[in-house]
């Protein structure tokens, strides 16, 4: 991702070594670290303070993500905020704890030591969360302690004496609600004062021995007592909801209903918007053809760029809808319950309940899924989850599936209005990916990834209403990533394909596709893919889709845009007959691929790991090329043998 919003120069957003601020505190921007345990509302606060002025980044060399953002203060100054990974202590054990520890102690050469710390704790759970105050105050940096979820605390009859706690801790303490935005003024005041405070470190207070957990807890308990902390009554609604969502019968049924509702709505709700976009791309293509003068440039613009990129952008609504649902499930707290319900089933395949969360995200995209596997402490469980995550049907497969299914599968009813044949095939592909993943997980976990540690520890957050604010931030973020990909990788591939399809020139004219460079590349690999029922045109698509799966749609869009006269078979000429394709690309591809070949192609896409981004993130997360290469090879082998089988079985039944 590049600039989040235009206008201001963004070079300073990430303090990387080359643009590292000078060390004089008055010249360089002030950096404030936000620290807190998981589920303390850290990210909500960060989002509230920075809005869209933020970036996600990785520390070099490690897999841990952090977010940087700028907060504009009321006195018109700006401070940099860094949202560090959630930790329970600064005891450097896991990698993310190590990063938080190193950054706060100024031990990372690539990251300047923060000037101040904002420690955010859950006020409804202070007994446990106050423990983190000890190592943070030990750093000797100016610190603001925020007790979040003040509204929740008050509503459930808890209380805490802020002034007393402030005296005990010898630093600023404020009661806030990051979700509601109350008490944010206190943070502004603290941040404005940071520059003044830089030269006068806060007075030390007596702290417990930091590595002794029971001692630290005792210290926190005493603190709580002195600040007359009264823990709130247990969250009644969470109990009530849990007795429904974890009910022996209702629980699993609701779980299944939720998963099915998510998939059903992605397809039915997104469809009208996608159809609208598709028509808009097609008709604007025609309009461009009429408006622009006839030249090779018009062809590049309309057939190469517009159709190539447009055919992918069409899928944005569907992808956003999926991310919206996952966001709602995660923010509401249901995802933790789902992990609990899934645990026993997942254990049968050698995995665990925590694998469920990344695997569900993998239905949107494998890249965030691979990063989400960090919740799994067990290294081997985590590796196994990473290895199978790309088998889940990610949103990049959707464009390919939708195109092929619409072109080849007749719209027949299977179960009345409930399930049509295309929907059943789509569902079947999802199930195919899932079942294969389960088998692979079982095989891996009983061979190379066998482990004896079967512990499972998962904190259950209370149920909360997801906020529109955090959901929309998520969606904007995803849309940016997707459109950025469409604007770079896919645009580039579309242009390359157009050029390859138009060279070498014959007497100043573009050659037939068959005699172009693209054609000869496709023909070279044709012998290898012929047994799967694919011809050389599909071959070109397969090669380009190595970069990203959805690229094949753009590629075929470009190839057939070259070969056929689009307006003649455009959406205006929709045919009503069952099974007849309604759009230009669907009609065109129909001439080149048999139904059995299309089914084989679907299976190929269900299995093959055609995604550079996934390989890159797996390499980063596993610390080398060994695992991504293994993953790519086993998935390619699956794809080849699977589609060979599918082609032959389908050919047998369709003749």
């Amino acid at each position, binding site marked *: 991702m590049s600039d989040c919003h235009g206008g201001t120069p963004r070079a300073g957003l990430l303090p990387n070594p080359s643009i590292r601020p000078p060390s004089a505190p008055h010249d360089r921007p002030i950096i404030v670290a936000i620290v807190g345990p998981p589920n303390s509302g850290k990210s909500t606060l960060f989002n509230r303070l920075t809005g869209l002025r933020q970036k996600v980044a990785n520390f070099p060399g490690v897999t841990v993500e952090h977010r940087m953002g700028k907060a504009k203060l009321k006195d018109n100054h700006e401070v940099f905020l860094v949202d560090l990974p959630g930790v*329970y*202590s600064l*005891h450097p*054990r896991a990698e993310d704890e190590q990063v938080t520890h190193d950054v706060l102690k100024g031990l990372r050469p690539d990251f300047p030591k923060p000037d101040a710390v904002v420690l955010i704790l859950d006020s*409804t*759970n*202070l*007994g*446990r969360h106050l*423990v983190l105050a000890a190592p943070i105050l030990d750093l000797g940096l100016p610190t603001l302690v925020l007790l979040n979820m003040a509204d929740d605390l008050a509503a459930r009859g808890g209380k805490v004496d802020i002034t007393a706690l402030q005296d005990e801790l010898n630093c600023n303490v404020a009661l806030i609600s990051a979700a509601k935005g109350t008490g944010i003024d206190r943070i502004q005041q603290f941040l404005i004062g940071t520059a003044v405070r830089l030269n006068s470190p806060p007075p030390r207070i007596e702290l417990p021995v930091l590595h002794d*957990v*029971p001692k630290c*807890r005792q210290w926190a308990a005493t603190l709580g007592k002195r600040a007359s902390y009264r*823990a709130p*009554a*247990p969250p*009644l609604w*969470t*109990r009530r909801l*849990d*007795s429904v969502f*974890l*009910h*022996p*019968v209702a*629980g*699993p049924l609701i779980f299944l209903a939720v998963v099915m509702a998510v998939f059903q709505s992605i397809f039915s709700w997104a469809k009208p918007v996608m159809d609208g976009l598709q028509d808009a791309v097609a008709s604007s293509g025609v309009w461009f053809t009429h408006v622009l003068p006839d030249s090779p440039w018009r062809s590049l613009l309309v057939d190469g760029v517009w159709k190539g990129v447009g055919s992918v952008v069409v899928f944005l609504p569907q992808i956003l809808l999926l991310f919206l649902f996952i966001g709602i499930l995660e923010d509401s707290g249901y995802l*933790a319950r789902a992990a*609990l*319900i899934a*645990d*026993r089933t997942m254990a049968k395949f050698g995995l665990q*309940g925590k694998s469920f969360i990344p695997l569900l995200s993998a239905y949107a995209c494998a890249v965030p899924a691979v990063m989400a596997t960090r919740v799994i*402490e067990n290294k081997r469980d985590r590796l196994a989850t990473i290895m199978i995550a790309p088998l889940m049907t990610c949103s990049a497969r959707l464009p390919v599936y939708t195109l092929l299914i619409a072109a080849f599968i007749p719209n027949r009813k299977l179960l009345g209005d409930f399930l049509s044949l295309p929907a059943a095939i789509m569902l079947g592909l999802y199930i195919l990916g899932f079942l294969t993943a389960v088998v692979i997980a079982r095989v891996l976990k009983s061979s190379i990834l066998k482990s004896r*540690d*079967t*512990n*499972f*520890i*998962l*904190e*259950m957050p209370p149920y909360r209403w997801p906020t529109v604010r955090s959901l929309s931030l998520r969606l904007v973020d995803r849309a940016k990533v997707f459109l950025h990909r469409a604007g770079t990788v896919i645009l580039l591939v579309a242009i390359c394909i157009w050029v390859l399809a138009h060279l070498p020139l014959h007497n100043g004219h573009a050659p037939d596709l068959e005699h172009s460079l693209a054609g000869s590349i496709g023909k070279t690999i044709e012998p290898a893919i012929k047994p799967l029922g694919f011809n050389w045109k599909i071959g070109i698509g397969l090669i380009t889709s190595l970069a990203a799966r959805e690229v094949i749609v753009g590629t075929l869009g470009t190839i057939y845009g070259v070969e056929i006269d689009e307006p003649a078979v455009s959406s205006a000429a929709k045919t009503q007959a069952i099974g007849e394709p309604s759009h230009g690309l669907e009609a065109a591809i129909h001439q080149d691929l048999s139904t059995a070949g299309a089914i084989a192609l679907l299976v190929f896409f269900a299995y093959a790991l055609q995604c550079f981004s996934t390989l890159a993130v797996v390499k980063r997360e596993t610390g080398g090329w060994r695992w991504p290469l293994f993953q790519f090879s086993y998935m390619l082998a699956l794809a080849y043998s699977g589609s060979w089988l599918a082609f032959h079985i389908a050919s047998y039944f369709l003749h």
Partner: protein
Amino acid sequence: MIPKGSYIVTFRKKPVQHRAHHHHARTLAELPTGQRCILDHLDLPEPIARRLMELGFVPGTEVVPGKRAPGGGPRVFRVDGSEVALRHETAAKLFIRRHPESDLVVLS
């Protein structure tokens, strides 16, 4: 630590059986739902024990077993104001001692 007023103190349908059960209960895994107890020690490797302690499972703390996931999955334990789910095999490594003022306490 946990306000008592918010719990309904009641006997289950088969109190005798539960009491007999409790009499022998040595680990968290054996406790019936709602039975308060005091954690005595953790018989687990250091990193896992440490993680559990950070989450509140410190010896001497009160723990209350809560809902179990359907089909014998992990179980939720209430400890120090939060809820943490553990598998049976992990809970079986957390040894308990009797709660000083405990009788059957069933949480709403």
